[in-house]
């Protein structure tokens, strides 16, 4: 049955295929349009460069009125990513707007990799190292990048 959420997700998918933003990709899983797999490539000139980070996006029938739940599957070391892969990003919580689509979500997460917000930490160690010991931070991130090749 086609519901507004499913119809909208088909449109999101079509747009993502026709006009893909650089460095991100995503597609519904084989048998369920409400669950997507996505990949974000680590942005250039950041310690995440060369990483291929996998995510899952889970939508409810309330999409696009409510945001989906987005989670990194790949192990991440980032000030705004929780241990379980959950992401602390305003547009996925209290600043969600129904005008955002999957492309916008993925590109926002991609820019969060380049510009962490250490003042709203989901991983306090990553936030602290990011602020006080950038070299150690980058070392930890690079370990994630290497692990992302194997995952």
């Amino acid at each position, binding site marked *: 049955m086609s*519901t*507004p959420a499913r119809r*909208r997700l088909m*449109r999101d998918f079509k*747009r993502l295929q026709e006009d893909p933003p650089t460095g991100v990709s995503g597609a519904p899983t084989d048998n369920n349009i409400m669950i997507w797999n996505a990949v974000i490539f680590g942005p250039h000139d950041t310690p995440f460069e060369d990483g291929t980070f996998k995510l899952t996006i889970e939508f409810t029938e*309330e999409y*696009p*009125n*409510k945001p989906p*739940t987005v989670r990194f599957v790949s192990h991440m070391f980032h000030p705004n990513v*929780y*241990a*379980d892969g*959950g992401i*602390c990003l305003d547009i996925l*919580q*209290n*600043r*969600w*707007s*129904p*005008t*955002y*689509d999957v492309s916008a979500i993925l590109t926002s997460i991609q820019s969060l990799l380049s510009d962490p917000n250490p003042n709203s*930490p*989901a*991983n*306090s*160690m*990553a936030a*602290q190292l990011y602020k006080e010991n950038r070299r150690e931070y980058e070392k930890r991130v690079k370990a994630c990048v290497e692990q992302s090749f194997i995952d």
Partner: protein
Amino acid sequence: MGDESKNSSEEPSQVNQDELILAQQRQIEKEISESIPLVGEMEPISSLNSEYANDEVYLEKIKDLSSKYKHIRRTRPDGNCFFRAYSYAGLERLLDKKDEFNAFYKQAEESKDALVQLGFQQFTVEDFYDIYMEVLKRVGDLTDVDDAKKTLHFLFNEQGYSDYMVVYLRLLTSGQLQKDQDFYSCFIEGDRTVADFCHQEVEPMYKESDHIHIIAACAALNMGVRVVYMDRGNNKSVTEHDFPEGCTPLVHLLYRPGHYDILYP
């Protein structure tokens, strides 16, 4: 700071607070949605009495209200009540006036291009616009006014349609604020730009409406509203305010702190 043991542990152990909060929020919303329809049936004003048994201040004001209005139609208190009530009540009134409805329809048809010109993303705006126009067309095509009103009521209680009506009206309101941002910027507190304000307080669903939303929505739809305020204030009567000032309001809404319902003279 000061929590050395935590900082030296290998794995971050924080609980995902955002998700806990969201989960609780969803539970509350679910409880509300199971008990109150998006847009209810017409009820007599006296039905308000039962909500305020023994509350002299409110009972006095309900008496005053019932001298001015006969009926009330409740809406679900989900943060979208102003937009839903205003849109529903406006269309309901327009169905009685075919010419005005047609003018409204024409104005709605042109609204998408105006939003895209203002910088809204065509792809996502279109999704809401299509449903908005579908609803207008479905009720507008029915020649029998009672049938049209029944269809309107049905569609406004279908979550998919109803919420899209709200989203599109939120986008039109945002567009209006941004188009006239020189004017509206004076009413925005803090350092926020009009565009920031729109992204944070107007476009997201479930965000409650303030005066500035109402003024902009009325300007966007070119449809005046009288808001009747009923609160615990000292005076014995309800107070009325027309948006825009001096208009002949098409829509009448009852405001009680935090919530809007529809009124019928």
